[in-house]
């Protein structure tokens, strides 16, 4: 360190006289606040959830911008990973293509037969389900939750409980809706419960996530006969999801059956939200509207009920 004396003026080169930092009391105060918030979070305090979702929605523009900026890096990563297993993928696709050619002919036959039978039985035709495709702007996959944030919300008529799919199959369902963004609870989240059919016999079960990659099958009948590789799809029971959405296949041991999902939930870029207003949701919406009307009629002096907010109906789909 150089030091000069020039008319009582000292110069210290480097300016690193004070290297150590003090631990300030505010640090301990903030640690205390963090721990208090964590305890409130553990107790599932409702106000905390509401505030959290409002703040998360306000981050949406920043996240959208960050996602766009990260696109080249994601593309590079995807190119590298696809190049690494290109040969294996080619072989798998060839085999799958051969199998599908056989199935195409068979499915056309079955389709014609089914149409004849439906006409004969005067079956009510299924409603066409419209959808909106959205971009994934945030990923919260980790030890605590498996969910994603997408860039469509109540402005696009997205509602809580709507099923979300992609080209491979079922992804999850909407649990929070803001004006421009929504949160999708993935099928493998610990809070996810989906009524499903298993195998050709259509055995009813509940697909329960545990934050792992392979959700469990619960509440199957004791005498249920399932096999490894059996298809798992939504049953439509409860009216939350349309029946027949492909979810995955039964894997691991049959004593504690688990499902390998058709969709790889890690590199999700775009997903589609199905506008499925099943009977359960129509009934719940009707009851909610009726309750609002009666509450409004009983207190005419009060201000009119608020318009549909960012978290309207929150939790009703869970």
């Amino acid at each position: 360190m150089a030091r000069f004396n020039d008319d009582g003026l000292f110069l210290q080169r480097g300016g690193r006289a004070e290297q150590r930092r003090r631990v300030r009391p505010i640090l301990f105060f903030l640690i205390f606040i963090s721990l208090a918030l964590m305890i409130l979070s553990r107790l599932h305090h409702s106000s905390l959830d509401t505030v959290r979702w409002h703040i998360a929605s306000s981050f949406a523009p920043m996240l959208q911008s960050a996602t766009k900026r990260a696109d080249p890096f994601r593309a590079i990563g995807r190119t590298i990973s696809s190049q690494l297993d290109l040969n294996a993928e080619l072989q798998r696709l060839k085999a799958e293509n051969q199998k599908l050619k056989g199935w195409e002919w068979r499915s056309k036959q079955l389709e014609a037969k089914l149409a004849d039978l439906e006409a004969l039985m005067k079956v009510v035709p299924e409603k066409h389900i419209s959808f909106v495709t959205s971009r994934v702007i945030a990923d919260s996959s980790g030890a605590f939750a498996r969910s994603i944030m997408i860039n469509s919300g109540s402005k696009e008529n997205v509602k809580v409980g709507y099923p979300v799919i992609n080209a491979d199959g079922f992804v999850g369902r909407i649990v929070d809706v803001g004006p421009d963004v929504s949160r999708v609870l993935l099928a493998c989240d610990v809070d996810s419960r989906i009524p499903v059919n298993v195998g050709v016999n259509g055995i009813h079960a509940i697909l329960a996530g545990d934050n792992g990659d392979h959700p469990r099958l619960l509440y199957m009948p004791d005498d249920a006969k399932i096999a490894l590789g059996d298809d798992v799809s939504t049953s439509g029971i409860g009216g939350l999801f349309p029946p027949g959405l492909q979810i995955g296949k039964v894997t691991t041991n049959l004593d504690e059956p688990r499902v390998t999902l058709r969709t790889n939930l890690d590199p999700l870029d775009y997903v589609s939200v199905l506008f499925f207003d099943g009977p359960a949701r129509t009934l719940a919406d009707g009851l909610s509207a009726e309750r609002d009307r009666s509450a409004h009629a009983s207190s005419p002096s009060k201000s009119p009920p608020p318009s549909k907010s960012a978290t309207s109906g929150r939790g009703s789909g869970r």
Partner: protein
Amino acid sequence: MNVSRLVAPIGSVVLLTLLAASPLGIPADDRFFLPLLPVIAIHYWTLRHDAWLPEWVVFLAGLALDILTHGPVGYWAFIYLLAHLIATLGSRVHPETTLARLALLGLAIAMVTIAAWAVASIYFFEVLDWRPYLTGAVLASLCAILVILPLLRILDGVAEPGRNIRLTRGA
């Protein structure tokens, strides 16, 4: 202290926090290293006595990550504050060489990872699988050496004041 000494630490911590919540297509079990990246920036800037990274910024960064990742509110805020505390205590040993600084950072990442695993286990009332945490710590250390630290050094160089000379009037 010039403006860049305020912007560089906060900017880097905020950017790395946003990166941790971005959909990068990384498998869920391997994603744990992403929230550890802001820990590297917090550690780096806390050791730099002339950089401005107050505790409340660290707290807010952690809170933002908790909200965006839908984890327990306060979890990453607590872990980041712990990282700040470790770095503050680490600054007392005066790590002068690069190797000493790297060792100190490695130790900080290890301690923060153990704390993150322990707090998550207490939160769920069960002993969680430690392997994703170990993988995360190793990946975060590699990222620190190969990417984050060189970038922070460049940022630090840009933000460095022109002449680092202090004038004091003597008796």
